[in-house]
């Protein structure tokens, strides 16, 4: 992979106001993630891990600092522009899967393309994405008819279907047993190898972190060390 920085942050800060007290959830974080990298973000609770993930995933705006995602400055965009960036450039995999339980696997995977305004070959693309995570024979199942591991695979397919610049996974194995968890990690790493998808995994689990190329450790809103 080249040396193209997909993520560039400089002096990223997020300050919450709790009444009169200011909480510095992130206190000036600067780092880069290059295309095709697999990076994990670790840290104890309260370290600013979730805040950083929300900012990287464009779910929230920094109080100050710059954040360039895939060549676009996103720290100054409004809500709808952020929604658009999330749609095109970020794929999310959540700890609790977050699938729409009423919809089939196929419809769940189609959802990001609907918000992208895609109409043509939407079903085809969703089907291919499900095949690529090994669920080609389960496309019309609803989440309640799938195991946890299978549900998380649907979520991975959904995250990938718009070909995002980065894939953000928040404790992707946290709700799974160890066997299913291992399979999901293998799937994510395989996608990284085959497609060059940039992976950012937020986790508590040192075993997961060990499988990534680089660990960003946070403590009290600052980067503790960046091991390459």
């Amino acid at each position, binding site marked *: 992979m080249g040396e193209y920085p997909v993520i560039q942050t400089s002096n990223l800060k997020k300050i919450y106001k709790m009444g009169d007290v200011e909480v510095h959830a992130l206190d000036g974080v600067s780092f880069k993630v290059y295309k095709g990298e697999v990076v994990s973000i670790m840290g104890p609770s309260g370290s600013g891990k979730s805040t950083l993930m929300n900012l990287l995933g464009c779910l929230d705006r920094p109080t100050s600092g710059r954040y360039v995602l895939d060549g676009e400055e996103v720290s100054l965009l409004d809500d709808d522009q952020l929604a658009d960036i999330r749609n095109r450039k970020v794929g999310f995999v959540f700890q609790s899967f977050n699938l729409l339980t009423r919809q089939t696997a196929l419809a769940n995977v189609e959802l990001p393309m609907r*918000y992208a305004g895609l109409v043509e070959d939407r079903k085809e693309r969703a089907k291919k994405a499900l095949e690529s995570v090994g669920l080609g024979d389960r496309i019309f199942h609803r989440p309640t008819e799938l195991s946890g591991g299978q549900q998380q695979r649907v979520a991975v397919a959904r995250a990938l279907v718009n070909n995002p610049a980065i894939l953000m996974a928040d404790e992707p194995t946290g709700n799974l047993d160890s066997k299913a968890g291992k399979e999901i990690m293998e799937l994510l790493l395989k996608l990284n190898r085959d497609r060059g998808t940039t992976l950012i995994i937020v986790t508590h689990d040192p075993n997961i972190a060990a499988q990534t190329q680089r660990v960003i450790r946070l403590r009290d809103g600052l980067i503790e060390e960046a091991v390459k």
Partner: protein
Amino acid sequence: MNLGQAVIEALESLYSNKLRSILTILGIIIGVGAVIAMLAVGEGAQSTITGSISGIGTNLLFVYSGNMSNSDVRNVKPITMEDADALLDQYQAPSVEAIAPMVSGSLEVTAGGEKKVSTINGVTPDYQSVRNAELKEGTFITEENILGRASVAVVGVDVATALFDRTDGLIGESIRINGQPFRIIGVLKSKGGSSFGSQDNVVLIPLTTAQARLFNKTSDDIDMLLVQATSSETVNSASDEIANILRLRHRTKIGLDDFTIFSQQDFVSTAKTITGVFTIFLGGIAAISLLVGGIGIMNIMLVSVTERTREIGLRKALGARKRDILIQFLTESSLLSLLGGIIGIGLGWLISFIVGKIAAASGSPFNPLITFNSILLATLFSTAVGLFFGLYPANRAANLEPVEALRYE
């Protein structure tokens, strides 16, 4: 997201909460049903009443003495036979076709132990053409009957039924009005109508007989003139001509007419105004229940937004813009009210049908009318209710912060 998908998704979501959706829709069904039924009853009443007024005759003017709208009028002169004759002047009143003077009152009619209180009208032969009075059998009152003050009567079907239990073969039968014997010479065809009491509960006798023997009046004294104009266009000019002649004859001051001219159109428009107010009143009460239904929608949509906070967060994370979420929830609330509206129209139709049946069974036939306008109104109004009451919850959903929404348990 296009609208078609939004509708399908909204239907799926409503379907997944069947009972809740049905209960919410029920509020709208009852509201729309009530509006439709009440409007139908109002419209039906209007058309029945105006229809029965039109059935009195065509191009009619009613002239009677007195002026109820001006209390400064004193020394009211009665309308007389001379007045009636003067109005027949071809030159001064070219728009007047015919005149039927009459006296009228309510008296008890008896025959063979049966009795019925009826309207007794003392009339002239012209009454028949002016009032479109058609006969089932027999003859109408003639000029000789008038001159001879004959004790003859033409009876309406209600009277015939009440006294003899039949409506034909009655010629030559005798009845007593206020104890005085009269011989039946004709039976009127039924006119129907019920708004001013039945037009069939009537007995017609010669004007002179009525004046002398029933109402103790002089041969000059008349209660009312029925004037027929030459055509519907000349009703207004006929009214002006009559007014001019009567002002001259009664020597009234300007603006102080001691008589009143009322046209059939006036009656119709008065009746329309009354039934219109009545309709609005009924519709307004029904609309309140529609409003309550709307609040029900708002309530359930707020619950739904809270329940689906995580889903909204997820959709936003996947790239849904505010507008997408807004449309999603507005589609749901509009669909709820639209479905309720459609079923409500059916219910309203059913209610008005039943009201019509009950009215027919209780002897005052009247057809509730469901007009295209009332259906349009109810549909638009119910959808508007859904949009309006859906707006706040949908807006609340659209403005959720994705981070907060995703964290919501």
